[in-house]
């Protein structure tokens, strides 16, 4: 006698209860607070906000906690919440030139107006495990100079004064395409490309950006500037007749300066690759800028053929929430289709016993 396995509902409930228990860990330890996550795991929270496309430190911290530190899972939680939010307006374009800068470095000039400002960075640290942090103490007394952010001009604007770099595309005032509200079709415009990359997976963009440095669509990049700081978000309210400031967001902007030989219409000049990400995510902003530049091969009359230049390939696979869902869906039962394949393989083997025997020998 055979009784089919039942009880999916109960099994799911139990699995989720166990997940909750494992998330909590040792109940003898205090539960980690959202403030602690927001303050001490800042870069994890930043990544969740960037790839989740929602700027909310508290919700992102909650997502990190709920996801047990699995950042793609946390990004997924934020996306699923974001999708339910009503859209009540579009802000005016951010002015990153007006950023209150917390960090700003340029690799193209030794010194420049506003100076180089290292800010909070892992760069130049010796990657030696600091056991002092493992204990209760380990707090660093900070030599506090001025922590107050500064305003400073963008490097690309300085280059632009000489006409040595292509002008940033002008805002023609038209409503930009919104990848979260309309289905994308290829080829895409600049807004679509940048939006897709901005919420794309950091690791994926890193690998593609890296590939351009190793000769697959080489673009001779220089970091014109990386800046990280606070930018004001402003909303036009037609009913009021004036702009309203909604507050500030922290963003990282990377302006990559790349060589360009020039063409029949355009004299030799530098070109731009652009990266912009919520929070402090320099690796992502730089990778995005490299990939963005590689995707512009057609517009600049360059030779195609490298993975990072393939718009449909790059943009269709950069979303980690989509990617993880589809890869992991292979865990779902497929026994109906597998049964059909089993039947076919058995039939094919039965049809050609001689062939099978031959192959086996």
């Amino acid at each position, binding site marked *: 006698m055979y009784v089919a396995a039942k009880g999916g509902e109960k099994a799911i409930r139990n699995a989720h209860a166990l997940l909750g228990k494992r998330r909590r860990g040792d109940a003898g330890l205090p539960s980690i607070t959202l403030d602690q996550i927001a303050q001490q795991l800042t870069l994890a929270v930043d990544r969740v906000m960037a790839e989740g496309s929602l700027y909310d430190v508290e919700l992102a911290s909650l997502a990190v906690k709920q996801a047990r530190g699995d950042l793609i899972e946390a990004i*997924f939680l934020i996306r699923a919440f974001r999708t339910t939010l009503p859209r009540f307006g579009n802000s005016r374009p951010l002015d990153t030139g007006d950023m209150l800068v917390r960090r700003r470095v340029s690799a193209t000039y030794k010194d420049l107006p506003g100076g180089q400002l290292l800010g909070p960075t892992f760069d130049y640290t010796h990657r030696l495990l600091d056991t002092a942090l493992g204990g209760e103490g380990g707090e660093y007394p900070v030599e506090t100079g001025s922590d107050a952010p500064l305003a400073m001009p963008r490097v690309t604007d300085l280059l632009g004064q000489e006409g040595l770099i292509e002008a940033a595309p002008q805002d023609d005032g038209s409503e930009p395409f919104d990848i979260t509200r309309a*289905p*994308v*079709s290829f080829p895409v415009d600049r807004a679509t490309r940048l939006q897709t990359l901005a919420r794309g997976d950091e690791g994926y963009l890193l690998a593609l950006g890296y590939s351009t440095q190793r000769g697959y669509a080489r673009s001779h990049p220089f970091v014109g500037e990386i800046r990280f700081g606070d930018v004001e978000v402003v909303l036009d309210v037609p009913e009021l007749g004036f702009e309203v400031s909604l507050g500030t967001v922290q963003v990282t902007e990377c302006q990559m300066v790349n060589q360009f030989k020039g063409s029949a219409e355009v004299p030799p000049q530098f070109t731009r690759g652009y990266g912009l990400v919520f929070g402090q995510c320099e690796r992502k902003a730089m990778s995005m800028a490299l990939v963005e530049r590689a995707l512009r091969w057609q517009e600049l009359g360059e030779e195609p053929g490298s993975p990072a230049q393939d718009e*449909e390939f790059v943009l269709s696979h950069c979303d980690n929430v989509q990617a993880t869902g589809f890869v992991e*869906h292979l865990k779902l039962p*497929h026994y109906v*289709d597998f*049964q059909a394949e089993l039947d076919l393989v058995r039939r094919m083997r039965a049809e050609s016993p001689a062939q099978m025997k031959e192959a086996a020998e």
Partner: protein
Amino acid sequence: MSAQATSSMPRSSMPDITYNFAYLDEQTKRMIRRAILKAIAVPGYQVPFAAREMPMPYGWGTGGVQVTAAVLGPKDVLKVIDQGADDTTNAVAIRGFFEKTARVATTTATADATVIQTRHRIPETALNENQILVYQVPIPEPLRFLEPRETETRQLHALAEYGLMHVKLYEDIARHGHIATTYAYPVEVAGRYVMDPSPIPKFDNPKMDDCPALQLFGAGREKRIYAIPPHTRVHSLDFEDHPFKVQHFAKPCALCAATGVYLDEVILDDKGGRMFVCSDTDYCNTRQAQGHVGELGVPAEDAA
């Protein structure tokens, strides 16, 4: 820490989050309904739609869930199946999602449902004109594995240029003596578009033809909706000298003795023991309740 101690701890200061009926906001549902109407007007054509992120992963039925959310009303009765079964984990999760967000009645009985969301099967019980069958679709493009680029495949559909597919099927015959596609077997809808029926076994293909129920297909990750309106001609691609044939099972269901239904193979031990049982659990249970007994089944009154 005991459960009691946990519950006596202060609640989080964050406000509760509430959701609209069936999770999606009304504008989004309207957008999806417009895509559905277009899909019904052009049978088999893949309509791009602005799929939203859902609280379940892409690839786990987000397209089907969005279509269901858009067509579901408070009086609907919902059935959700995965691999033909109501109690598979993902079916349970999706049914629970709509019980929670839409508070609709749910059922496992095919005949009682007004909306049936499915993954990989069409129920054995014939559907009627008061029902909607919503399929979850992973890859909506039937030509995708022949041509990976969307820009190319859209053109092929526009020109009704399906030579690639016919060559693929022909090559199967040349190599194996028959067509080697067993599931997601391509169909031609209303004499125009070639369509992916989602990964149902080709056994189910004939049920799509002239079906009185409305059939809707949702692909969330790929952002496509397509449809087969009621009583539409659905033809599984074949050749005159190699007509379309469905799988045939040598034995009836071991539990309910049904024949002419799709069976799952269940491995009983590590000595090669196996049995074949109905993939459609509702159909099998109903038959057993009616007194049908297969060779490994038990009479209904004994089991109770």
